[in-house]
């Protein structure tokens, strides 16, 4: 392809504006910007929280105040002014919702635009949706059916009111308040999120899914998800995000904690499409997320993620393989375009005997973006016969983007087996021409090639997500080859 053609195509991508960039006009209850103890007390009071939780938040705030923002990631962005953010924003909709008629029509419209109207979701048997707009859950469905099995699936705020003993027992056990700068901040100011508990031996009959959406201009998002799979249970959890277009940067510092008890299995899938900023890197979401799971004996946690959005991503869904014979998996496709930066990967901490982990990471970089894989495989002295297999591949679409791999391997037990494979390739002009020669247009050819490249990961997604994820991949890379 000639140079000018390349430039033209790159130009077309940059001209492609964010498809989900719209704003819902809903009357919100927002507290003034700024962060101090008083704000935390206000949040806790507004949410009518028990005393222990307020103390927990204040402890987190104290720890956070003494911490420094981390700078080791391969990303570059202007320092955030955390005092300019409002830490609480809830749609003014206090009463219980009995039917869709009572839901704010504006909200319904938003959901329709996202293609996830509750009506549609209700018809789609098997998907319960806990729709989070800004920080407060506004609609929860399929609750009854899950209730019969003893499955608890609700907003974290509700869980704090209804099941305080579970929340108190597990919250902070996998990601403690002091874990890192953003986790500490989240612990201090989180406003809501999702809670899920699967009782012993229960196989959750449907995919549980939560859609997040940042809605209030200048409002930080501090979701917190707590997922507990009790002994021998199984759950597949889906999390998807789209965010409206904004000029100023929005901070998203979420925490996800998973506890997988003896012989339990959790599949956690994410499609992340926060607003990535415009072609010049203006705006976009800063996605600084802490996700971690703890596996007890013979338990399993699989993280699957398709990351296409955000201006800056800093995210390492990890597994602590504490119990013997436990399994951790990480399957990731991360796409960066224009000026996006992603530093993402996983940590597999092998503590128990015969613990196994698999990492498959597929990076796709285009435009002037920077895409880094950062992974840690750590084998502790007691982890006899632990095994890890890692593949991290990078696909470059242009000559101006960057792909980086930072694999860390620490082995303190000689019986461990570690395999690591890495490749970097540029999308082939030959491949595109071959497709074109068969009558396939260039755009579609790129879509086909990229989907093929990412297939090993896309195949791990539940059906409901696979289609959406493929669509996102294609949208994110339209016209981007050089």
């Amino acid at each position, binding site marked *: *392809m*000639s140079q000018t*053609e390349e430039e033209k195509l790159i130009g077309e991508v940059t001209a492609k504006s964010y498809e989900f960039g719209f704003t819902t006009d809903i009357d919100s209850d927002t507290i003034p910007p700024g962060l101090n103890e008083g704000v935390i007390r206000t949040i806790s009071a507004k949410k009518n929280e028990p005393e222990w939780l307020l103390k927990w938040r204040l402890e987190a705030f104290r720890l956070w105040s003494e911490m420094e923002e981390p700078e080791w990631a391969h990303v570059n962005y202007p320092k955030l002014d955390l005092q300019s953010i409002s830490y609480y924003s809830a749609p003014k909709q206090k009463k219980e919702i009995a039917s869709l008629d009572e839901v704010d029509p504006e909200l319904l419209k938003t959901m329709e635009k996202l293609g996830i109207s509750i009506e549609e979701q209700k018809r789609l048997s098997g998907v319960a949706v806990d729709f989070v707009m800004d920080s407060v859950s506004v609609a929860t469905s399929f609750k009854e059916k899950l209730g019969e099995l003893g499955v608890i699936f609700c907003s974290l705020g509700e869980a704090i009111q209804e099941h305080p003993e579970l929340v108190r027992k597990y919250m902070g056990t996998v990601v403690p308040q002091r874990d890192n700068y953003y986790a500490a901040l989240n612990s201090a100011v989180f406003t809501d999120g999702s809670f899920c508990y699967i009782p012993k031996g229960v196989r959750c009959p449907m995919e549980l899914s939560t859609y997040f959406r940042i809605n209030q201009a200048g409002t930080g998002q501090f979701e917190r998800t707590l997922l507990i799979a009790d002994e021998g249970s199984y759950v597949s959890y889906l999390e998807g995000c789209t965010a409206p277009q904004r000029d100023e940067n929005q901070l998203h510092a979420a925490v996800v904690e998973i506890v997988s008890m003896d012989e339990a299995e959790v599949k956690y899938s994410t499609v992340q499409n926060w607003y990535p900023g415009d072609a010049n890197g203006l705006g976009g979401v800063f996605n600084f997320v802490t996700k971690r799971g703890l596996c007890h004996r013979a338990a399993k946690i699989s993280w699957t993620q398709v990351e296409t959005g955000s201006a800056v991503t800093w995210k390492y869904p990890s597994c602590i393989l504490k119990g013997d014979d436990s399994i951790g998996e990480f399957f990731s496709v991360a796409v960066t375009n224009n000026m996006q930066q992603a530093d993402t990967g996983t940590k597999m901490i092998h503590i128990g005997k015969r613990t196994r982990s698999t990492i498959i990471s597929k990076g796709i970089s285009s435009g002037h973006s920077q895409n880094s894989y950062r992974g840690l495989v750590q084998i502790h002295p007691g982890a006899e016969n632990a095994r890890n297999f890692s593949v991290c591949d990078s696909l470059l679409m242009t000559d101006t983007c960057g792909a980086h791999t930072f694999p860390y391997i620490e082995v303190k037990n000689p019986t461990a087996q570690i395999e690591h494979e890495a490749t970097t390739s540029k999308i*082939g*002009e*030959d*491949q595109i*021409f*071959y*497709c*074109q*020669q*068969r*009558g*396939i*247009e*260039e755009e*579609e050819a790129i879509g*086909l*090639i990229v*989907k*093929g*490249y*990412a*297939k*090993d990961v896309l195949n791990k997604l539940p059906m409901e997500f696979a289609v959406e994820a493929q669509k996102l991949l294609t949208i994110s890379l339209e016209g981007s080859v050089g």
Partner: protein
Amino acid sequence: MLKIKNLHAKVGDNEILKGLNLEVGPGEVHAIMGPNGSGKSTLASVLAGRESYEVTEGEVELDGVNLLDLDATERAREGVFLAFQYPIEIPGVSNLNFMKAAINGKRTHLGLEPIKPKDFLTKVKECSSLVELDGRLRDRSVNEGFSGGEKKRNEIFQMAMLDPKLAILDETDSGLDIDALRVVSKGVNKMRSKDRSFIVITHYQRLLEHIVPDFVHVLSEGKIVKSGGKELALELEEKGYDWLK
């Protein structure tokens, strides 16, 4: 059918085709032979519309349509098919999905509905039996892990699926053993019809024993220097190319 007039083409600063003329009538099979570096594969790429080749002069018309105005995709949809000398691997994309995308691309271009799954499968069965391509290969990723012979069979399978007006075979015999050569040639011969023309590019007479051409042309230094009937191929086999210079 196909009319090539005074075609000049270059890659970078290197002119490779230097005034090539060729007419291929409907249903005809033209073989193009010639020494290494004479421009045979360049001709194939230029006809298919590969962007790294720049046409500096000349005309190429297929059924009255000026191919040089069209990009590679549009030419394919107008009925130009190139069987690659080195078929490309596309990991993770199944052969059948690839063919479906190709067929539906062409159908959209013609203002038709996407092909019905049942019709598609019927077509797949017909075309794969043509080159004895078994189901295992059909379902695998495009050319990934295929042997040389399997790749060439897959090219002819794709040709049959796409039903082109003009099929260009670029050294389809290279890397084939005798059995595979026979299978591939049989497939091509079955596809010969009064509405379809072939340009067969080869080094060797061997292929032309199986796919018998109506005309043979010798390409040398970017021009056709001699044309004749199928007996010309035998003569070349005997004397080499040097006597033509």
